[in-house]
C-alpha cells in the first residue's frame, strides 16, 4: 500500500500525526499512539500555528496566500495582505484550494497505459526512461518538430526553465493554453493603441463603470483584485454607480445599480451609439481634430434612434448613460467578458476602447504598461492549428502539463478524435482528468503547495511560491521533472542547466530579480524577505498610449446572423464555483450553492419564466439543447435575470473523469461550441450560440438551498435608494438612532445581562457584499463543516454556518437581486437558548451564543426556535475521505451525528488571541481577532470586534445611519448589524 507508506514517512518527519480529529465521546481509555518528532524541525511548535506565504494557482490571476500550518499540515489558506493582487482577500476557489492538495483522487504514482487500455503503476525511473526514449528517438531522427508542449499559463522562472529545456531537446512548439482568455482585448488594444497587451483597470478610481458583459466580480481576469477595488470604490463614495449591459444578470450585474438588457449581439451598436451621442452632444474630453473626425467617421451611422431600435434599449436610457458616463471623472468602460466574446468580440473591445478614449479614461482608469499575464495565452486558433497538424500527422508527441484539453476544447474542434491518433501522449498532471485518461504515460505533478515556484500575474509583481508540505504522494514539481530529464541526457547540456532541483534554479533566477530590484541589500536578506512577504512587489509606472491612426472596425450595423427565428440564443459563462471546470473535483465547491441560482452539485439551463411558460417547463424539468455542433440534456432553472430570447448555462461540470466528485456530474456545455473562431483575434466564439430547446419527459429536483425567493416585506435584505439630484433617501438621522436605542431598552422584560470584559459583535455592510460566497467557503474550511452531497442538499440538509441569502425584489430599477450573508446572530435574547433542556446552548459572558456539541442530545428544539434558521443539525456523521481529513482544523472538533452546530464567531480564533494576549500580559487589540468569513471577504464587507471597546471599528459602525438588525421586531437583540445596501433610483 504505497499510500499509507508515504503517509507514515510524512508523519515521521512532521510528527504528531495522531492528533486525531475523530470525536471520541467515550470515556474509556483510548489506546492510541503518540508519534513524536524524530528530528524536531526548528521553530515548529506543535499546537502553535505557523504561517507561510505562498501562491494560489487555482486560476491565472495568481493571488498571494498565507498558509496556516499545524503539526506540519496546511489546514487553512488566507489571502496574503501584502500581495498587491488580492490584498488579503480570497475567493471561494482560493479557499477551497487545499482540497485540491488533499484531494483523494490525485494521481499518486507514474502510470503507463497497457494495451488493454488500463493504467499500470511504474517507477519514476521507468517513467523518465519512457519519456527520454521518445524524446531521444525524435532528436536522433531530427524530428523534434513533431513534439509539442502544452502548458497552462506559466510565468516567471518555470517558464524560463521550460524554454531552456525545450532548447536542450530542440523542441519548438510550446502552446500556452487557458480555456478563458482575452485575446480580443489584447487585439483591440493593438488596433486602437498599437499596444498588444491587457491593461490594468483601476476600478477604485472610476466614478462610473459601464460593464459590457465583463463579470469582474466573478471570473473576469482577476476577480478578487477587482472585487476588492469595487468594494473600495463603493466605500469612497456610496453614490458611485456600476451599470451592467448584457443579456443575463450575472453576479456582477446583480451588484450593479442598473442592469440594461439588450438584444443578443448588439453590444457593439450600443457602444458606438453611445460614442455617437457623446460626440454629437460634445460631451467628450477634448481630442485632436483628426482623431475626432476619425472616430466620428467610424460611428456615423449609429444615430440614437437606429441604435435604440436595433438594440432594444430606449433612447432616454442611452442618452442618460451617455451624459452621466461622459460626466464621470474618470469613468470606466469594460468589455471582453465571455458574454460578448462572439463573432465581433474584437470590434466590441475596439468600441469599448474608443468609448474610454473619448471620455479621457485611458491612462487614468485604463492603464497600459503592466502586461497582465493572461495576455500571453495562445488563442483558440492556435489550438485548432495544432489539431490540424495532428490530423495531418505532423505531430507525434504531445507533452501536456496540467491542461484538460479533452474537457475544455469543444468536440467540434476534433481534438477528441485527434488525440487518439497521436502515438505518444505524455500527461504531467495532478488529477486523473479527462485528458490524462487519454495519455499513454501519466506523470504525477505536485500541487503548488508542494513545490517551489514563482508567478508574475503582471509586471512588477513577483509572487513567490514556497512549499508548505512535502509531496503527499510520489509526485514531483514540474520544474524538478524537467531538470531531472535534462540531467539524464548527454553531458554538454549539463553545462547549460547545472541545477539539481528547481529550488536551486528558482533561487538562481531570483538573483536576477534581486539585481534589478534591490541590489543594495544582500541576496540572502532579499530572498528571506521575499519568502516572508510572499514575493517582491513594485509599483510599475504606466505607459502612455495614443490613438493609432489605423483604427478601424466593421462599422455597419451588424444584424445577427440569419438564424431561423424560433431558435434562442445560448449564453455560456464560467461558473464562480468551478471557473473553467478545474473546480469541479473539490467537494466544497460542489457543495456551496451558486450565489445566483442557489443550486449546488449540478449544471442547469437558466431560462426566463415567460420562456418557460411558453415551453411548458418548470424548475427541474429536463430540456434538450441542440446547437449545430452538439446536443445535451439538462434540467431547467427558472431565472428572472435573463432575457426571454436567451438561455444560459454555467461552465464547469460534465467531466468524464476527474475524480469522484466531478465524474459524470452535470453536462459540459462547451461541446455546443463551434469550430469557428473570431476572425480578428482568433478567440473562441462563446456567444451567441443559436440553439433549439425542446422539452423532454424527464425531471429531477435540483439541489437548491433556497426556499422562498422573495422577502414578503420582512425587511431581511434592506436597501436605500439615491437619486442623482436628491442624494440618499430615508437615511436615519442621529435623532432616530437615539430614539431607537431608547425604545430598544424599553422592550426588555428583564434587565440586560452585564458583559464584564468583552461583547463580541459584527457589522456587515450590504453595500459592499457582492454575494461571492467566499465567506461560506472560508467558514467550511475553518470549522470542519461536513459536506453532505447532492441527495442531502436536496433534502435541505446542507451544513453551511454562514449562507448567502438571495432575495428578488421588483422595486426601483426593475429586477433587484439582494444578498444577505446570514449567520448566527448571537442574540442577547437568544430564543434558542432557554429551550435547550441540557444547557448545550447558552449565552456566554462575552455575548457569544455558545453551543456545546458533546452536551447536545439533539432535540432540535433550538433550531425550531431560531428565527434566523442558522442552526445546522448533523443528520449523519460526515466523512472526509483520506487524505481530505488532513485539512481538518485541530482547534475545532468534528461533530458527531445527532448534534446541533452553528456559527461560533470562530471561537477558536478568539480563544487563541485571548490566550496570546494573556501570555503577553496586555489587552486585546482591535482587529486582532478576525473570523474566517471577515478575513477572506474580498470586499471587506464584514467587520468583527469588541463592542465594549468604544474605539473599535465595529463600535463605530454599530450605530450607523444605514444600520438595521434582521427581525428587530421580535427583540432577539442580535449581535450582528447590517448596513443597508444603497441603490441608484431610476
Amino acid at each position: 500500500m504505497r499510500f499509507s507508506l508515504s503517509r507514515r514517512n510524512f508523519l515521521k518527519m512532521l510528527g504528531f500525526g495522531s492528533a486525531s480529529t475523530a470525536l471520541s465521546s467515550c470515556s474509556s481509555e483510548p489506546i492510541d499512539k503518540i508519534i513524536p518528532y524524530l528530528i524536531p524541525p526548528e521553530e515548529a511548535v506543535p499546537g502553535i500555528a505557523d504561517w507561510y506565504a505562498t501562491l494560489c494557482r487555482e486560476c491565472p490571476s495568481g493571488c498571494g496566500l498565507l498558509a496556516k500550518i499545524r503539526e506540519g499540515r496546511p489546514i487553512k489558506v488566507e489571502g496574503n495582505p501584502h500581495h498587491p493582487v488580492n490584498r488579503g482577500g480570497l475567493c471561494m476557489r482560493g479557499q477551497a484550494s487545499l482540497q485540491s492538495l488533499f484531494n483523494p483522487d490525485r494521481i499518486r504514482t507514474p502510470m503507463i497505459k497497457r494495451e488493454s487500455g488500463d493504467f499500470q503503476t511504474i517507477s519514476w525511473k521507468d517513467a523518465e526512461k519512457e519519456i527520454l526514449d521518445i524524446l531521444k528517438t525524435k532528436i536522433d531522427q531530427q524530428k523534434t518538430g513533431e513534439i509539442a508542449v502544452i502548458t497552462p499559463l506559466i510565468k516567471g522562472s518555470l517558464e524560463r526553465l521550460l524554454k531552456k529545456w525545450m532548447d536542450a531537446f530542440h523542441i519548438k512548439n510550446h502552446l500556452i493554453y487557458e480555456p478563458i482568455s482575452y485575446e480580443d482585448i489584447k487585439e483591440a488594444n493593438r488596433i486602437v493603441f498599437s499596444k498588444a497587451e491587457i491593461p490594468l483597470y483601476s476600478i477604485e478610481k472610476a466614478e462610473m463603470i459601464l460593464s459590457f458583459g465583463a463579470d469582474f466580480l466573478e471570473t473576469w481576469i482577476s476577480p478578487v483584485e477587482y472585487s476588492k477595488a469595487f468594494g473600495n470604490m463603493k466605500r469612497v463614495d456610496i453614490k458611485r454607480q456600476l451599470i451592467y449591459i448584457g443579456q443575463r444578470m450575472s453576479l456582477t450585474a446583480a451588484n450593479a445599480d442598473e442592469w440594461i438588457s439588450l438584444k443578443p449581439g448588439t453590444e457593439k451598436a450600443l457602444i458606438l451609439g453611445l460614442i455617437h451621442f457623446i460626440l454629437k452632444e460634445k460631451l467628450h474630453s477634448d481630442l485632436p481634430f483628426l482623431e475626432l473626425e476619425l472616430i466620428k467617421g467610424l460611428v456615423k451611422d449609429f444615430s440614437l434612434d437606429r441604435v435604440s431600435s436595433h438594440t432594444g434599449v430606449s433612447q432616454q436610457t442611452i442618452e442618460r448613460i451617455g451624459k452621466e458616463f461622459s460626466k464621470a471623472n474618470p469613468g470606466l468602460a469594460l468589455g471582453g467578458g465571455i458574454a460578448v466574446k462572439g463573432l465581433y468580440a474584437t470590434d466590441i473591445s475596439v468600441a469599448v476602447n474608443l468609448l474610454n478614449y473619448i471620455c479621457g479614461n485611458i491612462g487614468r482608469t485604463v492603464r497600459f504598461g503592466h502586461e497582465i499575464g493572461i495576455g500571453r495565452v495562445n488563442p483558440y486558433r492556435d489550438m485548432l492549428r495544432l489539431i490540424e497538424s495532428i490530423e495531418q500527422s505532423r505531430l507525434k508527441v504531445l507533452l501536456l502539463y496540467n491542461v484538460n484539453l479533452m474537457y475544455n476544447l469543444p468536440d467540434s474542434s476534433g481534438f477528441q478524435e485527434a488525440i487518439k491518433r497521436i502515438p505518444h501522449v505524455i500527461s504531467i498532471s495532478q488529477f486523473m482528468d479527462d485528458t490524462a485518461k487519454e495519455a499513454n504515460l501519466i506523470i504525477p505533478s505536485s500541487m503548488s503547495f508542494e513545490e517551489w515556484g514563482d508567478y508574475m500575474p503582471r509586471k512588477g509583481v513577483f509572487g513567490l511560491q514556497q512549499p508548505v508540505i512535502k509531496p503527499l504522494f510520489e509526485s514531483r514539481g514540474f520544474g524538478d521533472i524537467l531538470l531531472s530529464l535534462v540531467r539524464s541526457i548527454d553531458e554538454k547540456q549539463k553545462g547549460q542547466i547545472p541545477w539539481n532541483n528547481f529550488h536551486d534554479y528558482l533561487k538562481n533566477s531570483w538573483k536576477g530579480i534581486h539585481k534589478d530590484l534591490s541590489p543594495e541589500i544582500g541576496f540572502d536578506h532579499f530572498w528571506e524577505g521575499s519568502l516572508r512577504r510572499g514575493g517582491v512587489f513594485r509599483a510599475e509606472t504606466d505607459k502612455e498610449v495614443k490613438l493609432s491612426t489605423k483604427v478601424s472596425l466593421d462599422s455597419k450595423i451588424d444584424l445577427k446572423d440569419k438564424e431561423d427565428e424560433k431558435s434562442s440564443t445560448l449564453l455560456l459563462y464560467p461558473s464562480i464555483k468551478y471557473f473553467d471546470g478545474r473546480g469541479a473535483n473539490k467537494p466544497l465547491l460542489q457543495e456551496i450553492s451558486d450565489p445566483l441560482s442557489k443550486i449546488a452539485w449540478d449544471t442547469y439551463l437558466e431560462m426566463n419564466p415567460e420562456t418557460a411558460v411558453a415551453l411548458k417547463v418548470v424548475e427541474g424539468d429536463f430540456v434538450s439543447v441542440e446547437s449545430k455542433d452538439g446536443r445535451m440534456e439538462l434540467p431547467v432553472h427558472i431565472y428572472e435575470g435573463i432575457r426571454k430570447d436567451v438561455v444560459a448555462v454555467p461552465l464547469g461540470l460534465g467531466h468524464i473523469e476527474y475524480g469522484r466528485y466531478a465524474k459524470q456530474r452535470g453536462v459540459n456545455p462547451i461541446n455546443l461550441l463551434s469550430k469557428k473562431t473570431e476572425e480578428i483575434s482568433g478567440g473562441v466564439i462563446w456567444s451567441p450560440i443559436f440553439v433549439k430547446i425542446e422539452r423532454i419527459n424527464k425531471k429531477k429536483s435540483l439541489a437548491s438551498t433556497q426556499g422562498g425567493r422573495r422577502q414578503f416585506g420582512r425587511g431581511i435584505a434592506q436597501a436605500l435608494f439615491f437619486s442623482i439630484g436628491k442624494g440618499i433617501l430615508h437615511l436615519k438621522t442621529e435623532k432616530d438612532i437615539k430614539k431607537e436605542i431608547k425604545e430598544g431598552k424599553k422592550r426588555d422584560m428583564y434587565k440586560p445581562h452585564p458583559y464584564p470584559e468583552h461583547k463580541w459583535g459584527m457589522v456587515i455592510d450590504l453595500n459592499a457584499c457582492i454575494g461571492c460566497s467566499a465567506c461560506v467557503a472560508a467558514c467550511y474550511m475553518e470549522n470542519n463543516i461536513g459536506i453532505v452531497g447532492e441527495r442531502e442538499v436536496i433534502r435541505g440538509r446542507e451544513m453551511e454556518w454562514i449562507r448567502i441569502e438571495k432575495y428578488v425584489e421588483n422595486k426601483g430599477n426593475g429586477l433587484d437581486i439582494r444578498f444577505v450573508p446570514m449567520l448566527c446572530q448571537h442574540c442577547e435574547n437568544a430564543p434558542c437558548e432557554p429551550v435547550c433542556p441540557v444547557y448545550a446552548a447558552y449565552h456566554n459572558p462575552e455575548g457569544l451564543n455558545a453551543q456545546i456539541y458533546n452536551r447536545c442530545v439533539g432535540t432540535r428544539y433550538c433550531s425550531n426556535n431560531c428565527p434566523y434558521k442558522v442552526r445546522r443539525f448533523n443528520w449523519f456523521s460526515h466523512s472526509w475521505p483520506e487524505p481530505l481529513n488532513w485539512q481538518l482544523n485541530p482547534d475545532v472538533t468534528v461533530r458527531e451525528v445527532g448534534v446541533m452546530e452553528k456559527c461560533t464567531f470562530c471561537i477558536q480564533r478568539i480563544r487563541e488571541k485571548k490566550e496570546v494576549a494573556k501570555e503577553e500580559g496586555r489587552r486585546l487589540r482591535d482587529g486582532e481577532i478576525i473570523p474566517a468569513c471577515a478575513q477572506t471577504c474580498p470586499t471587506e464587507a464584514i467587520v468583527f470586534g469588541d463592542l465594549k471597546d468604544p474605539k473599535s471599528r465595529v463600535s463605530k459602525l454599530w450605530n450607523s445611519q444605514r444600520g438595521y438588525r434582521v427581525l428587530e421586531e421580535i427583540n432577539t437583540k442580535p449581535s450582528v448589524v447590517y448596513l443597508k445596501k444603497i441603490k441608484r433610483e431610476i
Partner: protein
Amino acid sequence: MKLFKKPLLIFLSGCVILFFGSGFLKSPYAPVQPIEFSHKIHAGNYELACLYCHSYANRSSYAGIPSVQRCMGCHKITAQNKPEVKKIHEYWNKKEPIPWVRVYKVPDFAYFTHRRHVNKGINCTTCHGEVEKMERIQKVSSLKMGWCVKCHKENQVSRDCITCHK
C-alpha cells in the same frame, strides 16, 4: 414467601458490593510502553526538570513528547549498554520514532492548554501525580469534566463552557 427472602437479600447485598467495590478494585491505567522508560530514574534520581523533555509545555497546548534526538542527546554516551537504552539506539538507527502509548488524552471536543496552566504556576504533579516516583507512568487523574471543574471552581477561574469545549 419466606423461602426467597434470604436469596433476595444476598443478591441485593452482592449488587451493592459490586457497585461500590468496583470503584476501589479498579487499578490506575499504566500501559506497557515500547521502552520501559522510568520517570523515577530521570525525574526522580537525576531530578531532570519536566520541561527539559516535555519542552513545549510552557509554549503550547501540547506538553510534547521528547524527540528521539533529544533522548540520544544524552544516551549517545550515557548508559549505552542498558537494554532499554539499546532500544532507543535501534529506533535511532532505523530512523523511526518511538511509538509511545498515550496515557493522558483530553477528548477531541475539549480544549486544554498546558501553556496557560504551566505559566500560571500550577505544578505538573497537580494533575500528573508524583511522576518522579513512578517506574512506569500511570494515569492518576480521570481527566473527566468533573475533575477539571472542581479545580476551576476552587481557584475561581472561568467556568464558562466554551473556555474548554471546542
